[in-house]
């Protein structure tokens, strides 16, 4: 494993933690917001630095040069590889955009210190080099939202029940898998538990109600940041794909596909904008899982690309909804709100991000959907048309919501509804990335292709180790197979 030139990863994780403490003691909310914004911008720069440094090294995996954390714990905890290199800047960017577009009216319910802590946890999940690191951080990530619900006196039973089950399944599953001496001894129940855990976190039908409940009760910003980085998909790639047998992946694929279709249909009949967003997101995140579980280079490349584009576009989409909500209150999709004349730029971004999420030509999602469908047609012929139908339904839902929110006779308002400068900056950044990624997709696709190959190599290595020896092998019990040098995959 190579070392980077600067401890970017540790910096990216520690900065938000220190920032949270700093922001916590700022009395003026505007000052606190400015400082939080600066901290997330620095964190974003640190993650970009890590990505650039890693790309320059040209190795499969890299870690920080100085090891304060590893010296403390006795092992390497953080690493960067082809998979997580763009995910970390993505996570930091989502946080940056969310804080940037947060209006003053939202400060009471949207806690900046808690958001910074959540960002640190998210970056820890993405940069964890060991399975236990991923598991611990994924379990820890459910805490901030729970604290918010207590502080805001919001109902939390649904969230607690689902996330409690998620943590139990995740920890038990990982214990079962990691206790096995060799890959072939990994118990099926443990793999199944891990799979169920990540599916639960991803909101697969029928255990998805926590997500609608979350969007209904939590602050929109918190809910967005909890789901849009798609840590469940990360859990699948890091924890499940390397160890799960093919039939298990196919089951997951079918379940994800059912979820995608179901959520697309549900998005079309929603009357509340938050629930609508929740189902649109659920449908897309399930499509990401469908591609991951084809376990082919093209399918995986499509999925990993779609992951980035959906995260970005749906965060933009959600942020527009949030900005509209900040102006007119909770949005009802049974009436025409007529907001186009007052916020035309928001309308444009809403349409752009929505269409990008369904893979409209010229946007970042187009090639990703093409790749996934291509892989699906080859792997399971009936899946390809179903994915196309899902995207068609989602496209309908997006335009329906667009017309409901922005069409109609504009009502006169006593306050100025026009777009604010921070919102405009957020709009420009999101638009630039969506269109740029759509017009010049080769670089991004190549990067995701390398990550896909790395994942498949890791899976092949585990499968090879699990294959029974042709003749009685010498006893190797309790001897852990050492990962190959330079391997950036699953380490225990």
């Amino acid at each position, binding site marked *: 494993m190579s070392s980077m030139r600067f401890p970017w990863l540790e910096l990216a994780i520690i900065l938000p933690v220190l920032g949270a403490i700093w922001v916590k003691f700022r009395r003026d909310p505007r000052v606190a917001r400015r400082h939080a914004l600066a901290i997330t911008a620095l964190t974003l720069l640190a993650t970009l630095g890590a990505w650039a440094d890693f790309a320059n090294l040209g190795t499969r995996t890299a870690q920080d040069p100085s090891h304060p954390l590893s010296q403390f714990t006795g092992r390497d905890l953080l690493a960067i590889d082809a998979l997580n290199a763009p995910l970390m800047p993505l996570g930091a960017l989502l946080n940056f955009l969310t804080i940037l577009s947060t209006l003053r009216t939202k400060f009471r319910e949207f806690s900046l210190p808690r958001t910074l802590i959540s960002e640190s946890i998210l970056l820890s999940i993405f940069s964890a080099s060991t399975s236990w690191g991923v598991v611990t951080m994924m379990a820890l990530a459910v805490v901030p939202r729970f604290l918010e619900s207590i502080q805001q006196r919001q109902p939390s039973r649904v969230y607690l029940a689902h996330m409690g089950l998620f943590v139990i399944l995740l920890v038990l599953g990982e214990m079962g898998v990691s206790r096995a001496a060799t890959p072939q001894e990994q118990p099926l129940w443990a793999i199944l538990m891990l799979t169920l855990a990540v599916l639960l976190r991803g909101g697969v039908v029928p255990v998805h109600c926590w997500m609608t*409940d979350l969007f209904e009760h939590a602050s929109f910003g918190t809910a967005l940041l909890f789901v849009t980085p798609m840590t469940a998909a990360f859990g699948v790639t890091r924890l499940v794909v390397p160890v799960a047998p093919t039939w298990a992946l196919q089951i997951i694929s079918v379940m994800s596909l059912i979820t995608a279709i179901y959520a697309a249909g*549900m998005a079309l009949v929603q009357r*509340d904008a938050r629930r609508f967003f929740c189902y649109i997101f659920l449908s897309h995140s399930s499509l990401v899982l469908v591609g991951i579980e084809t376990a082919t280079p093209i399918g995986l490349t499509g999925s990993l690309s779609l992951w980035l584009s959906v995260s970005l576009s749906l965060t933009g989409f959600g942020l527009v909804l949030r900005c509209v909500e900040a102006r007119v209150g909770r*949005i009802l999709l049974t009436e025409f709100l*007529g907001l186009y004349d007052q916020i035309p730029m928001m309308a444009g971004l809403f349409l752009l991000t929505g269409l990008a999420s369904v893979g409209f030509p010229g946007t970042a999602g187009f090639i990703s959907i093409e790749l996934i469908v291509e892989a699906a047609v080859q792997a399971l012929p009936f899946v390809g048309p179903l994915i196309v139908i899902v995207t068609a339904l989602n496209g309908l839902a997006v335009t329906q919501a667009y*017309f409901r929110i922005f*069409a109609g006779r504009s009502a006169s308002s006593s306050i100025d509804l026009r777009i604010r400068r921070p919102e405009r900056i957020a*709009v420009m950044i999101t638009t630039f990335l969506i269109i740029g990624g759509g017009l010049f997709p080769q670089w991004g696709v190549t990067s995701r292709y390398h990550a896909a190959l790395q994942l498949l190599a890791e899976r092949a290595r585990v499968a090879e180790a699990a294959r029974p020896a042709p003749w009685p092998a010498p006893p190797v019990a309790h001897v852990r197979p050492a990962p190959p040098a330079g391997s950036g995959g699953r380490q225990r």
Partner: protein
Amino acid sequence: MNEWVARFFGLGAVGAPLLLLSTFGLATFSDRKLSERTMARLTASCVSYGLFSVVAMFLMMLWTGDREVPVEVGDWVALPAEDFHFRLKFLFDRLSVPFSALTFMLVGVTGAFANRYLHREPGYRRFFLYFAVFLMGMVVAALAGTIETLFIGWELVGLASALLVAFFHERSAPVVNAQRIWTVYRISDAAFLIAALTLHHLSGAGDFAAFTGSGPWPQSETVIAPGQAFGVGLLLLIAAAGKSALVPFSGWLPRAMEGPTPSSAVFYGALSVHLGAYLLLRVSPILNASWLLCACVVAIGAASALFGVVAGRVQTDIKSALAYASLTQVGVITAEIGLGFRYVALIHIIGHACQRSLQLLRAPSLLNDYRLLENALGGPIPHVPGVTEQRLSPETRLRLYRIGIDRGQLDASLDRFVVRPFVRCFRWCDRMERGWTDILAGRRSRPPDHARHRHLDQVVSKATSPPIEEPS
């Protein structure tokens, strides 16, 4: 033909609309408002340059005797190790050159008309932005050399079409109709995409030459087996039917007339409505491979033409009547394609597009035209009994009238048998989910917001409204 000359003119034809769209798009997102004059001049310049490029390419093809000039842009995305290539390629041949020239010409004329027609209209900029999206989509679709490239143009045309139908978004009717049109387009797009991927899978490439044969259009022969051609062809026929409003998707065409007249003229009188027929012409070698498929194409075309005649006769507004007249002609064109008359269909498209767009552009001044005509004749225009009045019994005419006035119950049937069961099923699921979440949460979920907001509004207005002063 010299490769550089071909690239210069070929990319010029595509680059001009791209430049126009980029300029308008950037202006919209940067909130820098372009003046009406600037927008009109930019549109005229880009359309003129695009038309010049296509005509120049046509002259070069005549000069060199080339019947087919491919212009390769390159791989948009490629994963060579996996043999995945998404190629951008444009093709200039006997089909694409006339169609793209027609596109530039009609868009230019309609753009000049719209510049005056929409002068000082609040949505002027929006109209021209969507118009640029449409132009880009039409040119890309017309000149596409691969099926994926055609799909890109196809989608852009659909989006522009739906957004322009909802142009007058202050009223709910245009918006509802736009959503319905978008729904049909999405079905059509889904069929197209599945067909494209299947073709890609069957022939190993998205290039038209790979599955329609390497000869110049329309003589090429497909390499796909008849059974496969029938399956893929049916999907393409669904896509074409959706885009060209053929039966059973014809219900959206009169609804599309909610948009401003210039867009109605260029979309539903001229270009967009012929895109389905263009697709069938482009993949005509696949049609040749299966007589059953050709029979389906003829049947759908004939049914659409017949329906257009019956419904068009009883319309009470000029734009709807013209919409059904368009449908009749498009149905005839489709039948011609199914019968194998490719050149006839192409000439029919060009002639019909020009005539219909002129009629639609004249539609707002119809009453004035009538008045002038009656003044010239010195009295009302005499009523001449038509064929139906002379040959059909009153009962049959009444029955046909009912079919026409109900628009064949096409939309009502789709609503009843497709939309309603779908919505009911998912609304039931929604109720079940809410119930389950309530049980888990131990409390009722959030009440419907509109009720809550209205109640709050009433409370606030009562609390804050000043007391009525007694007259002194």
